[in-house]
């Protein structure tokens, strides 16, 4: 029978078995290393970031369902509800138009996209907006 590349007889089955095991181990290590690099280079999921007067005061992962009351220095408050991967400001104390500047404002996702609330909108902190991963939805 014609064999294109004959098996080398000097390599025993034991040799081949050892080579196989080494190969599999190397491939597994490669997959694991790839996975680890990916995990490390990725930011840990989407976040709801809370800014009070332009300062980053807190962040909450969108992966966990929570309800937090955010207090602003001027006594105002926002209620932040995170559920199902989205952040909601369900309730806010808005003392009146144009006077909410002290409120905790702008619940943002991790991409830090500029949403209307961060552009000097007087209604900031009074919005009942929903966000997911940095997008206004």
């Amino acid at each position: 029978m014609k064999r294109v590349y004959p098996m080398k007889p000097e390599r025993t089955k034991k040799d081949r078995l050892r080579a196989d095991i080494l190969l599999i181990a190397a491939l597994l290590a490669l997959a694991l290393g790839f996975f680890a690099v990916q995990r490390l280079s990725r930011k840990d999921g989407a976040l709801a970031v809370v800014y009070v007067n332009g300062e980053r005061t807190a962040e909450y992962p969108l992966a966990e369902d929570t309800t937090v009351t955010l207090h602003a220095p001027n006594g105002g408050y926002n209620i932040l509800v995170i559920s199902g991967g989205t952040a909601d400001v369900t309730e806010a104390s808005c003392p009146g138009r144009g006077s909410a500047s002290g409120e905790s404002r702008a619940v943002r996702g991790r991409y830090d996209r500029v949403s209307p609330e961060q552009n000097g909108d007087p209604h900031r902190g009074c919005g009942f907006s929903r966000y997911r991963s940095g997008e206004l939805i």
Partner: protein
Amino acid sequence: MKKTKRLVLLAMLTAVAMILSYVESLLPSVAIPGVKMGLANIAVIFALFRFGWKEAAALSLVRVVLVSLLFGSVGAMLYSLAGAVLSLAVMALLRRIDRFSTVGISVTGGVAHNAGQILMAMLILQTKQLLGYLPVLAVSGIAGGVLTGACCGAAHPPHSGILISIR
């Protein structure tokens, strides 16, 4: 080997590969798309050892095209084709190096198949996100590769590594 005998053997191996693909398509699919045992690889590796890389390549291509037309979709053919080509290239190389048993070759082939599919998907869908699938699919490819490699070793005993005792 006589030409006719060779032709018949290859045709039969192709039929076996197609049936194995069909059997595999009947199995319930796991949560992650792309996770497969790659049973058809048994026939491809067998051909790789018995004949050579050209015959194995022909078998593999004919199988992919026919199986896609018969049981799958033409869209899926591109993915299979990319996987098959990359997998065959890697396996032929390892066969030539002649250091591993069918298991080692099959494992690498399985991983390469998955990598090829992902690369093709990335090309078609224009997204890098899919690269995250690679480690998962690589591990599944290794597991499937051990299985198919062992099967092939049993079918072609002189080349088995892990299945020494079962022989």
